[in-house]
């Protein structure tokens, strides 16, 4: 089963029969098993499924953190499998922003330093870096907490900081792995509202992994259901 592109514009993401197998003892774990999907530019897509359904593995393949065993992952027409590890790092740095369930902020740094980190890798000048990190943190409502450490912030605030970091290099693709998993439902909704607003404002494509169907239905334009590494169904909303 596969989704078809709906327009002639290069899709943001297209996977063709993408497969990721892990050896485990004598056997093989088929984490992702021949998935073909197409996600258009500016789309907000939710990947749903039980634990172990392969949704996070698929997200890592799209993020260029992992390489497929078989098949291709094309992002804005570029085949990630053909990139060197340096080019993949560059891709993650400039084209992708990532948000994690556990926020993944570096605890020894202030949130400003955390937000500046991807810009350091992108060799952005110090002054511009400071300005952009302040702007990003203001965008997510943390303009008054610039020098705070992650441990001094609530879960929701940490996820906002993590979102600000993901947006620092102005990526075209935002990948969120269970962004509300560690948050209460109200804070989770706030975060998703923010993601939706920002993705619209910045014309970003968003792929969100979640197992909360209700949230997916409320915020995404399309839900893709996975089970045992395979695509099982798709749900489009008007």
């Amino acid at each position, binding site marked *: 089963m596969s989704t078809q592109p709906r327009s002639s514009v290069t899709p943001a993401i297209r996977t063709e029969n993408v497969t990721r197998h892990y050896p485990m003892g004598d056997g093989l774990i088929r984490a992702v098993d021949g998935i073909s999907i197409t996600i258009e530019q500016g789309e907000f897509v939710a990947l749903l499924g039980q634990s172990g359904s392969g949704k996070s593995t698929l997200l890592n393949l799209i993020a260029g953190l*992992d390489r497929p065993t078989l098949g291709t992952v094309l992002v804005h027409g570029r085949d990630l499998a053909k990139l060197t590890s340096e080019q993949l*790092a560059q891709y*993650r740095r400039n084209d992708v922003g990532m948000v994690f369930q556990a926020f*993944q902020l570096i605890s*020894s*740094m202030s949130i400003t330093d955390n937000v500046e980190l991807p810009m*350091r*890798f*992108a*060799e952005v000048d110090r002054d511009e870096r400071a300005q952009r990190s302040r702007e990003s943190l203001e965008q997510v409502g943390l303009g008054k907490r610039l020098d705070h450490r992650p441990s001094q912030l609530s879960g929701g605030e940490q996820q906002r900081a993590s979102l600000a970091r993901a947006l620092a290099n102005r990526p075209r693709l935002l990948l969120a792995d269970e962004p509300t998993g560690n948050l209460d439902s109200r804070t989770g909704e706030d975060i998703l509202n923010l993601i939706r607003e920002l993705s619209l404002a910045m014309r970003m494509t968003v792929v969100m992994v979640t197992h909360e169907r209700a949230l997916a239905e409320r915020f995404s334009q399309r839900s893709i259901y996975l089970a045992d590494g395979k695509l099982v169904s798709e749900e489009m909303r008007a």
Partner: protein
Amino acid sequence: MKGYDLLDLAVRNLRQSKLRNGLTTVGISVGVASLVAMLSLGVGLQQLATRRLAGSGLFDTIFVTSRQDFRGFDREDDARTEHPEKAPVLDEDARTKITNLPSVTEVEPEIRVMGEVVANGETHFGFVTGLPMSARENEAFDSLKGKFFSGDNADEAILLLDFAKELDAKGPESLIGKEIILRYGERQALAPETNDRPQMNGAENTTESGDDYGFSVVRKEQPLRVVGIVDQEPYGGMRTVSRGRIFLPVRTTERLKMAQFTDMRSSLRSGGGKIYMTLTVRVKDPAKVQAVQDAINQMNFRTFSVLDATKSLRRFFTVLDLFLGIFGSLALAVATLAIVNTLVMAVLERRREIGVMKAIGASDQDVKKLFFTEAGAMGFFGGILGILLGLAIGKAINFGTAIYLTRRQLPAEPVWVMPPWLVGAAIAFSILVSLMAGLYPASRAARLDPVQTLKYE
């Protein structure tokens, strides 16, 4: 990532584990300090020995004689010389040529004559030798009573303490400033007898001195002022001029035309001109002796120097430095293991952080460079601290040695000398060793799989 950012992140990371990284840095500094202390001790001892050798005035000196003379003394040299009878003589021209050689500071004849000193109405026999002004630097004059010659042509004398005691047993030092009379034999040239002239080959080349035909020795007296008393023979008693009891400036002895034993040889030579039996060539630096000696050999003169002593000394110190360096490096080797350990621990502790950095765009190279920079920074700070610690150890060694020497009534001298190049070299070496220690942890950090590291948190 830019260099500044690398350094900034590295220093931040090091400050995260202050105690552990601090202890590792102190470990490196102890290693560097022990290396620096050992090498500086080697340098100090070598300088001390070289200074002693230079002070003896033997190792920067070449003795030059003509191959025509003293044949049969050195069979090896005789065998090397094809036509000794055609070899050049040591004349004024040769002296000028040798003086003009690079690194040569002084060329003087060795003058030693018999004389008598008249003091307090008594006469005392003694050998008179001519000393160049450079003899002032000889260690024998370190304990000189009175002064050295005021000029190389002054009518002044320095007496050997034993001789001074002979002149005045009660208070030899009271002789300083007093006048003595030196009785010596003056060489006076003789004009050739008329009937001898036709047989004289080249007699028309007779020079001003007229020494080429013959000379007579006439007793002369010269008043001299005693300016100093020396208690040991200059040049360690190793040279002709050492074996004198009355020392005069060399130009004064030349001016007074004091008759020497070797004048007999000069008078037999036909062809004229003033010649020297031996010239003493002083070279700027003992290391330059060989080059100058080779150049003089090229001029076909016979040369002799006490070079081998410095050569074997250098060899000894090279070996000593090597061993001191090895012992000093042991502590640094242990410190290297501490760096490896610290960084491997850091990689383990910061697995998640490394995964996050990779997820947000750090390349393998960025991660590798970051750990390398952390290792290098520890090496740099350890190096600086090590130099300071080494300096303190050195000061303590010199202080202790000075007390020890002073208690034994010996002049205190530094045995520990840190040359400026060692400061830079030690810091560079410390950084290099730390970078090498960082190789494994850095590549291990770079190889971490971000998917795995982010999964286990």
